[in-house]
């Protein structure tokens, strides 16, 4: 009986501090997690601001690109700087594109054999 009582005391002697430590650790973990989440949210917020800045920059660049690539601007620039002109249609030859010839292969397939 005495032996049993000692064992119980031993268990409670170990478990009680363990439980308290676990409780404290859990509390600390919760606080740590929460602070970490808040830090992440701050980081995310900073990144969102950067994203907005980048999107703003992108929109400006897109507008500049659209402006620079205006048909009129490109045509004027090509004409003035490189002497390009709209081709007179009588000087344009339209080349009809045909399928490339397939290599002949040893086959009795007539359709294949008569292909050019």
């Amino acid at each position, binding site marked *: 009986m005495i032996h049993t009582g000692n064992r119980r005391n031993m268990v409670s002697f170990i478990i009680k501090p363990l439980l308290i430590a676990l409780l404290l650790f859990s509390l600390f973990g919760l606080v740590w997690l929460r602070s970490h989440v808040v830090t992440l949210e701050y980081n995310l917020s900073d990144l969102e601001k950067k994203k907005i800045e980048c*999107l703003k920059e992108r929109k400006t660049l897109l507008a500049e690109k659209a402006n620079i690539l205006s*048909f009129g601007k490109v045509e004027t620039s090509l004409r003035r700087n490189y002497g390009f002109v709209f081709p007179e249609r009588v000087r344009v030859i339209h080349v009809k594109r045909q399928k490339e010839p397939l290599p002949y292969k040893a086959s009795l397939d007539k359709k294949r054999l008569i292909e050019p």
Partner: protein
Amino acid sequence: MNKKRAIILSTVIIFSFFAVYLRLTDLMILSHKRLSEKAKLQHIKVEDIHVRRGIIFDRRGRELALNLELESLYCDPESLNLDNESARRLATVMSKEPKVILAKVPKEGRFAWIARKLEDDTAEKIKRLNIKGLGFLTEAKRFYPKGELTSHILGFVGVDNQALEGVELKYDKYLKTQGGKVFFGRDASGRTLSSGVDIEAKGNNVVLTIDEGLQGIVEKELDKAMVRWRAAAASAIMMDPFTGEILALANRPSYNPNSPGSVSSSDRRNRAITDCYEPGSTFKIIIGVASLEEKMAKQDTLFDVSKGSIDAGGKTIRDVHKYGILTFKEVIQKSSNVGSITIGMKLGKERIYKYAKLLGIGEKTGIDLPGEVSGWIRPPEKWSGTSIGAIPIGQEVAVTPLQMLRAYSAIANGGFLVRPHVVSEIISPDGQVLSSLRDKEKKQIISSKTAETFKDILKSVVEEGGTGRSASIEGDEVAGKTGTAQIINPKTKRYSKEKYVSSFIGFVPADNPRLAIIVVIYEPKGQIYGGVVAAPVFRDIANQALSYLNIPRGKDAYEIPLLIAR
């Protein structure tokens, strides 16, 4: 003594606790609502979702209207510290007078705009001035990267991005989107936490049927014509005659939609659909089609126009030259007024009116742009005695350039009346096609045989002996008709002897039409005839457009079969 002290101490502690309980009751029960509201205001930041209009693209996906993010300057009058020196420095940066800026600052209130949508460098310079009470908000500014190009189609928006004209106005319900609020958490130092919500709401994108390249060609040639003929105004439209897709539409005078306020409202008018004119000889399509459809005439039916004049209700109408006896085809080819009135008299006013209506005269075309007018043709019972001599040659009627182009497209496409339109698709911000606005059903108004016969006649107009010779293109057959009409002087209410409208309407290649084009030049100086003033503009536009579209020549074209190995 000790006991007395203990009692006093206990009493103090009890009262202290009681005071704390009372304060807690006040904070947590009595003032709970007020305080929690206050806490929310301190910890939660509310921002408006940035509402951005959709992008407008041309048919090849080139941006014609998009948004820029610019900063607007506001002030908080209660905390503003704007002394004379600061006002002077601010005014210098903004290139304005200090009194203009000071006039925008009210004596009370917490918010007032100082300047909207500033350029980036200006905003940076103002920030560097570090004036207390000034702040910036980001706003979207609609930007039209092509400037004047397509201005009459795109329209423009106001300072608050409210649609005011053109496609911007007609398709506003698609382009704009609903706003809303986003809630952010923030700490005592003002740093915000992520909301996890996209702060930008985008409207749907609109794809036009317009091709920037073709539009550029049309606008360039209109500019040349305006200079060459010192004209008061001009319009040109290019359309796919089979689908009604408008490929280009331009007017002169024009304006830059980025600064629409810099020109008069008259320059911003889309004359191609809002202005009526008397079509003159281009209206002879009506009597031509009517007599073919009613089997009253064939191409070789003869008409005696040798007198060179005809009396209609007491009014004498003359031809430019005396022609003798002309076939029906030659009446149209040479644009004989006497021949056309003779045919018109044979048809009678009822049938002329019927076919005018069938070809869409006096009716809105239904184009998806605001401000279209229906034009005007009087019903037969309201015709005067001289009307039968005027209407067959395109007087006493009012049409828009687009109506006339649609009528000629019916000849090009085998007899179908199309609905002209400038928008082909609505696309969601993530690229899904929400609706396709292409017409599937078409209404046949005249037989394909009539259309084919009249097409042959229109081809002869551009051939040797026709009035539209200068519209011919080497290597391709063109079909078209010239028009020269006097303008009514609003003071005298009579036809002006100096002011004319010269026009040419046609399609090319004639046998397999890809483009239907109308060119209208208002009040040209030096020359008046459609065949001299407008037809060359048509030729130059058509020639370049066919090159641009890489359409092989129909006549004399040859192809070299080439084997291309990969």
